[in-house]
């Protein structure tokens, strides 16, 4: 398991290799890449700014990964999330899930991304060509 919050994400290639090395039982890796969308309604997005509770956020993500192991039987996972400013088109989050077979990885991936968005103390400010506002889960 690896969880990292940083101004710079590691390369996806290196993360996939790292995950593969954790077990020879791995038969597939499902990957989610979150990127900065360039539009919000009819507004142009200029950039996003992320901040996180630097000690609590990794702990919550680790708990989510442990839950996923127990529920879906995944082998391992890596989650990386940006903090600080991010420009349009840049990657802001990687979630990689390794499992024996694809089905549990696909199920776990959607659930894990949803939980990261809703349960991890990370905040996002969206700056568009018209305004700036904090994006918060309902």
């Amino acid at each position: 398991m690896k969880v990292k919050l940083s101004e710079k994400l590691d390369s996806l290639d290196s993360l996939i290799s790292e995950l593969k090395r954790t077990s020879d039982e791995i038969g597939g890796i499902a990957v989610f890449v979150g990127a900065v969308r360039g539009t919000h309604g009819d507004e142009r997005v200029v950039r996003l700014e992320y901040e996180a509770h630097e000690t609590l956020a990794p702990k919550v993500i680790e708990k989510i990964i442990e839950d996923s192991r127990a529920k879906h039987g995944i082998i391992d996972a890596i989650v990386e999330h940006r903090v600080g400013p991010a420009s349009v088109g840049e990657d802001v989050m990687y979630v990689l899930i390794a499992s024996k077979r694809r089905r549990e990885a696909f199920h776990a991936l959607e659930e894990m991304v949803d939980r990261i968005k809703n349960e991890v103390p990370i905040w996002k400010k969206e700056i568009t060509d018209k305004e700036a506002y904090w994006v918060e889960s309902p």
Partner: protein
Amino acid sequence: MPTVKVRYFGRLRELLDVKTEEYKVKDSASIADLLLEYIPERHGEVSETWKETIFRTVKGEILLKKDGTPLLRNYLILVGGKSSHLGYELKEGDEIAVLPPFGGG
């Protein structure tokens, strides 16, 4: 007179224009006292916005539960990194964090 440290994140950090600050509070002061009295008093220019941001209000008045405690919006209060509540009695050296609704990804 315990001294406690308060950390703010996201829209609250921006509203108060500070990341962390310390408060010396009266003995037996609670988190509710901190949020309703000490912080608004120090940040008087944004005190109304502060209250309306973290508490549920109607026409500027904070809504109360049946037991009289104020009703928080979807905000989380941590003491020493663990979830706490408005009635918690502050102790010397406590670190309080006020977390707005999350929005990562």
